[in-house]
Each structure stands twice: as structure tokens, then as C-alpha cells.
């Protein structure tokens, strides 16, 4: 296949770093430290017009980075898999079922582009759990671009100074931006600079092609150069992978070369041919597929980190209800997406769950 003939017209990249807080005692914003206050906050947000409130309304002070607070869930199938109850009653389960909140960080950002003709539209948010958070950057790439261009974007995100907060003079590297937001979140939601938290080594990234022209990228008919290009989508480095290309492929349907995810550590590139259809219905389904995959992986990673750190956590010990809920959910994921099932089936997660059970 001539990969160069594949013309992408819309692609979405979601990136999320993950932090797990070991000790929430003394958090500056009360609602994040107890079952009752957390559920009450969810109730308040759900009852508010537009289902959102300002950070200041929730915590009494102006947030350093956090602004508006919203429920981190919606009345959608995905969340009904997680919590099988009437959506109106979701706030009452917020603590026990580990339902997150979403805040919007300030300031907004823009992506500093190389000499690309396509647009990159960024959105940022912070997912808040009682035991941690993740800063999300969602990039929608619109306009004609190739898979090689997309790989360049990923490379630029991870290795370049690509994030420019509005009003700032110099762009930041991605890790720097995540660091800045993390500092703000520690201050706004936890115990400030003294927050005892651990971060995942690699951020989670999910890329999905939403629209294209020309041939599709087949997982089974790539030249070695094309394989290198594809691998750069999930592995933004010039170092040669020690694993064969086929080991990076997870077929979403058995042996379907057009329904697959390219996986490397926490990065996923998805090609879902069955939904790559210009019709609006398919477009929405594809977007949902992407969102569900990203959110399910992000949630699973959070839960795994919670369990993994529970032994060292003064606030969330192994007997804690949140940890127990996390164990239950990881043992039997309610949303059975292929990639999240793969994740909970990894030896690392299995060992962790066995260890907790023991």
C-alpha cells in the first residue's frame, strides 16, 4: 500500500497524564476529601443550571488553574455500563463508584505548529478523582494531512515546545505544561506543594482517525519504512523498536487489517474502518468509540494506580472503599472495550489484583 496516498482530513489526539495522590489530609478544597462532601458537590453541580459551577462556588476561593467544575460523566451508554442506575441518582454514588469531576484549567492553550497547513484545535480539561487527577489535552486536527504528518505532530507534542498558554510569550514542552497544571491542581484540589502524589511515567495517548480520503492504512501490508512511520505515531522517538511491528498491533476484529490499534506502552493509534464513513451517524459512532476507549483506559489506569499505591497511601489503604471498588471494577470491567480488556489482562494488572486479594 502506498501510505502516502492516504489522506487524513480529521484526526483526534487525546493525551492525559495521571497522578495518584497518596494523602489527601488537609486538602484545600473540602469536597475532595470525604464521601459525603464529594457526593454533595456532585449533587450541587448536577442541580446547577448547565450542570456546572465555578471552582470558587465549590471551594470558596478562586482556583489557581481550575475554573469551572462539571460532572466527569454523562447520560451515555458508557457510563451506564459503569453505573447501572438512573442518571439522576449518579451523584449519590459518586464516591463509592468513583465518579470523576471535570474542571477546565486556565489559561487556554494553543498549539505551536510547524509549517503545517492543517489546523490543530486544542482543548484542555482536568479529570478529578478523590485520589488523583489527570490533565487532558485533546487535539483535533482538521485539514489534509498524511500519516507521516500525524507522526510529526506526535513527535512535536512529545519532543518539541508545542504548548503555548494564551498570554505566554514562550511555548512549553508538554511535560512542562503538565507540570504547571499539576502544580495548580495540587494547590486547588489537594494539599498544595506538599501533596504526596505519584505520576505515571508515560502519559496516556489515544489517536483516532475520524475522516480520510483514499486508501486506508492496512496493518498487514506495510513496507518497513511505512511501519516505522506508523510506529512513530505511538512511539515518538528515532530509536528502533526492539519488538517486531506485528507485536504492536491489537486487532479490534480478528485479523481485520482495517480494524486495529497500534499500541506502544501507554499510546494507542486506532483505525476503525467500519466507522470511517462520511455519514453523520458513523461519524458520531466513531467519535463515541474514541471517547469510550480513551475514558475507559484512563479510568482503568487511574484505578490501577490507586490500587498499586494503596499500601503506601495513608488516605486510601487496601481496605478503603475506593480501593475495593477499583479492585472489583478491574477484576470485571463493565465496559468491555477491546483495549481496556487487554489492559486489565496484562500480567502487571493481574499480579496486582492477586496481590491485593492475598
Amino acid at each position: 500500500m502506498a501510505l502516502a496516498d492516504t489522506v487524513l482530513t480529521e484526526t483526534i489526539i487525546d493525551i492525559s497524564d495521571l497522578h495518584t495522590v497518596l494523602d489527601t489530609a488537609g486538602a484545600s478544597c473540602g469536597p475532595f476529601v470525604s464521601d459525603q462532601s464529594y457526593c454533595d458537590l456532585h449533587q450541587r453541580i448536577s442541580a446547577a443550571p448547565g450542570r456546572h459551577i465555578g471552582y470558587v462556588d465549590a471551594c470558596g476561593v478562586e482556583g489557581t488553574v481550575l475554573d469551572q467544575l462539571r460532572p466527569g460523566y454523562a447520560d451515555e451508554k458508557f457510563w451506564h455500563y459503569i453505573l447501572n442506575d438512573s442518571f439522576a441518582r449518579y451523584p449519590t454514588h459518586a464516591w463509592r463508584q468513583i465518579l470523576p469531576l471535570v474542571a477546565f484549567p486556565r489559561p487556554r492553550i494553543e498549539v505551536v505548529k510547524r509549517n503545517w497547513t492543517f489546523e490543530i484545535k486544542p482543548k484542555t480539561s482536568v479529570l478529578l478523582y478523590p485520589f488523583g487527577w489527570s490533565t487532558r489535552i485533546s487535539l483535533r486536527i482538521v485539514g489534509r494531512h498524511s500519516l507521516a504528518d500525524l507522526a510529526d505532530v506526535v513527535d512535536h507534542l512529545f519532543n518539541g515546545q508545542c504548548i503555548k498558554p494564551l498570554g505566554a510569550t514562550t511555548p512549553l514542552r508538554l511535560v512542562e505544561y503538565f507540570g504547571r497544571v499539576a502544580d495548580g491542581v495540587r494547590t486547588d484540589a489537594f494539599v498544595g506543594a506538599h501533596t504526596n502524589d505519584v505520576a505515571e511515567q508515560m502519559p496516556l495517548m489515544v489517536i483516532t482517525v475520524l475522516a480520510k480520503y483514499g486508501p486506508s492504512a492496512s496493518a498487514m501490508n506495510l513496507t518497513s519504512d511505512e511501519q516505522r512511520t506508523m510506529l512513530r505515531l505511538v512511539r515518538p522517538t528515532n530509536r528502533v523498536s526492539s519488538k517486531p511491528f506485528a507485536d504492536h498491533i491489537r486487532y479490534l476484529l480478528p485479523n481485520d487489517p482495517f480494524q486495529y490499534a497500534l499500541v506502544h506502552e501507554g499510546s494507542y493509534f486506532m483505525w476503525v474502518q467500519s466507522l470511517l464513513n462520511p455519514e453523520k451517524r458513523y461519524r458520531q459512532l466513531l467519535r463515541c468509540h474514541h471517547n469510550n476507549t480513551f475514558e475507559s483506559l484512563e479510568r482503568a489506569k487511574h484505578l490501577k494506580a490507586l490500587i498499586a499505591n494503596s499500601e503506601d497511601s495513608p488516605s486510601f489503604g487496601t481496605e478503603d472503599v475506593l480501593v475495593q471498588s477499583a479492585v472489583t471494577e478491574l477484576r470485571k470491567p463493565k465496559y468491555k472495550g477491546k483495549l481496556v480488556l487487554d489492559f486489565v489482562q496484562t500480567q502487571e494488572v493481574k499480579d496486582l489484583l492477586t496481590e491485593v486479594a492475598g
Partner: protein
Amino acid sequence: MRLDSLARTSLIGFYCLSVVGTLIACVTSTSVRAETTPTPSPTSPQVALDIGITPSRQTVGRQEQLDVFMIVTNKSAVDVRNLTVALFNSDFATLRLPSFPTLLPGFNSVNATASIEANPSAQFKQQQVLFALTYNWISQGQWVTAIQGSAVSIQVVRPFDEEAKGLLGGGAALLYLLLPVIPLVLGYQLMDRSLSGKFQFPTFGADYVVPAFLVAVLINLILLLAFKQLSVDYAEPSTMVAIILGSFLAGLGFAAARRYEDVRLVISWRYDDHDESLTYLKKALLRPDAPSAYETATGTDSEGATWSGVLLAQPAAGPALGATFQVSTPPPGNANAPRASHAEVDQVFTDGSIRPGRAPRRELVKLLEEHKLVPNRAVGITHDGIAKDTNVVTSLKELHITGRTATQLVRYT
């Protein structure tokens, strides 16, 4: 007086009788001389030649040369002159005749050698070849010509006649009877086995003998009835070549006619390792009896190498492996470039899969030929895990298939 008259009457009678007798004798003598060569009177000298003719061998093949040794002995005292020899047998031709001395004195001998040749159409049988010697001598002042013949027996034999004698009685005849049938059977088998995809060199096994014999008899009978004057001469090399070649071609023809569909597949729908994408798809989708569904096969060949690809049937050669394809509309940009409309794509595909039936397949090929859709390989053929850069592989050595999974040969992406 009475005595005188009696004597005179008797003398007159005797005279008359003598005259009549002389006249009759003269007339008779003249008529005999006019009809035959004068022969010496019993008192003339007798001439006798002893002619000994011996061929250098008793048998000869057509167009083969044979020397004939001659010894002529004049057994009389009379000189013989102008001795010449001539050959009398239409199946033989003279290559060289001996030239005898003009004079063969009495009680002398002369020897000579003649060379003759059996004609290309000489009959295969024992032939009597007559050598006629003509000579003259003088008898009572007159030249006398005589011809004396001597025949020799020469057998005109078929080629390999000697070899055929080594067979059991009637073997040669049986072989000649079977001669048109064996190439026919071999030609048939050659074509039939070639088309079956499992080629083996044809054989004429013992189980063919009886039917072949029957067919041979029937063929000969039919030929005899159809051409009453036909006499096939296998000893004629061109005839033999024509019979063998014609029979072989007839065998090929019978098999080809019987497996007409296979022949058509071989000629028009045979995959080639160098087939371009469009050619390959056309052959795979539109061939007669093209499968409605395709399978990806994995297997190993006789050398232990692993293969994977879409399982295809190569006419007269067993399995072949092919690639799967995706077709897509070319990217917009050039307004003049042809692009398939949604309606055209919908005619061929539903949810990316080709619609059942031949009409959508024909329409797909048409769109590809018009460049309104562009084909690209989706899943290539793999050989020991390495993708091959061809659309089809036909040279598979005894592929042993270990797994099959349903697949789509072509899909719209």
C-alpha cells in the same frame, strides 16, 4: 504305249505334286519367317548360354540397393555377340547394369555385377525379379537374336522387420494395429492430466491394452468402411509421422473438448505472478464459477516454508495464493480526475463489503478500469512471515493447508 503313257502320267503327277509341295513349302516357310525369329534348323549350330544370377542378399528394404552377381557361360562353340541384360519387375529399378563384352566366344564365360533398388512403393512380399539377357549369333549367314531369362527371388521387407521377428508371433501386427491408438491415448492423458492440475507423465498401462485394442479395431474398421481404397502404409516415414502426430493431436483434442471449461480457464483466467492489481481482481472476481466468498489460507509447502494468502484455484495447477484489496475513491483535488459517486459505490458495496452477485463485481471492475476507484493491496501474501510484493503467487510447491479463515477479497475503504 500303255506303259509310256502310264509313266508319262506318273511323271506328270509326281511333277505336279512336287510343284504343289514346293509351293506349299515355300508358302509355309515364308509365313513362319515372317512371324518369328528365324531359328536354326536342326542342322544349324546350337547356342546355349548358362546364366547364373545370384543376389548379394535375399531381402531388401524399400529404396535399398542390392547387388546382383551374374555369370554367363557360352556353352556352345558359336560366338555370341551383343550380350545385354534387362530387368523386368516394376517394383525394382535399375541403378547400374553390367556391360558385357561385345563378343562372347564359344565355351567362354563372362561375369558382371548389376545394382538394383526396390522402389519406394515396392510391395512387401517375395518378388520374382527377372533378368532377361538378349544376344545374337550368326546361323548360316544370318543373324539370330535370342532372349534368355533368369529370375531371382528377392524378399522386400518392412523396416524393423528383423527386429519384429524377435516378438512373439503376431506382435508386429498388433503393434501396427495399436500404433494410431497409443499416441491418441497418450495425447488424451497428457491434456487431461495437465488440465487436472496434477501433472504426471502419461503412461500406457496394461489396463489400456484391451480398450485400446478394441478402439484400434474400430478405427481400422471405420477407416476401411469410409475409405475402401485406403491402404495405410506405416513403413512410409511421412505416413507414420502423420499417423502418430494426427493421432496424438486427436487425443489432445478429445481431452480439450471434454474439459472445455478448464481449457477456457487456462487460456483466459490463469493467474500470473506478474498480474497487475486490476488484472488480478478481474480474474478473481469475474472468472467462471468464481466463489461467492473467499478464504485466507495458511499452510506450509514441501520445503517447510509457511504461506498465507487468499486461497485461489489456479486452472490446471492446483492452489494459488492472492492478496486482498481495498478500493477507495481518489482524493479530491483534481476536478477533472474521475471519481466514483456515492451512488456508484453503493451499487457495488454495502458497508464496505461487495454486494453478492456478479453484477456488482462487473460494475466494480468497470469503475476500476475507469479509474473512478483505486485499488490498493490490503493484506499481502506472506512467505515465512515476510510480505511478498506480488498480488498472486502461483508457484507453490505442494501447499499443505493448515488453516482457513473467511476473508473479503476486496472491500471499499
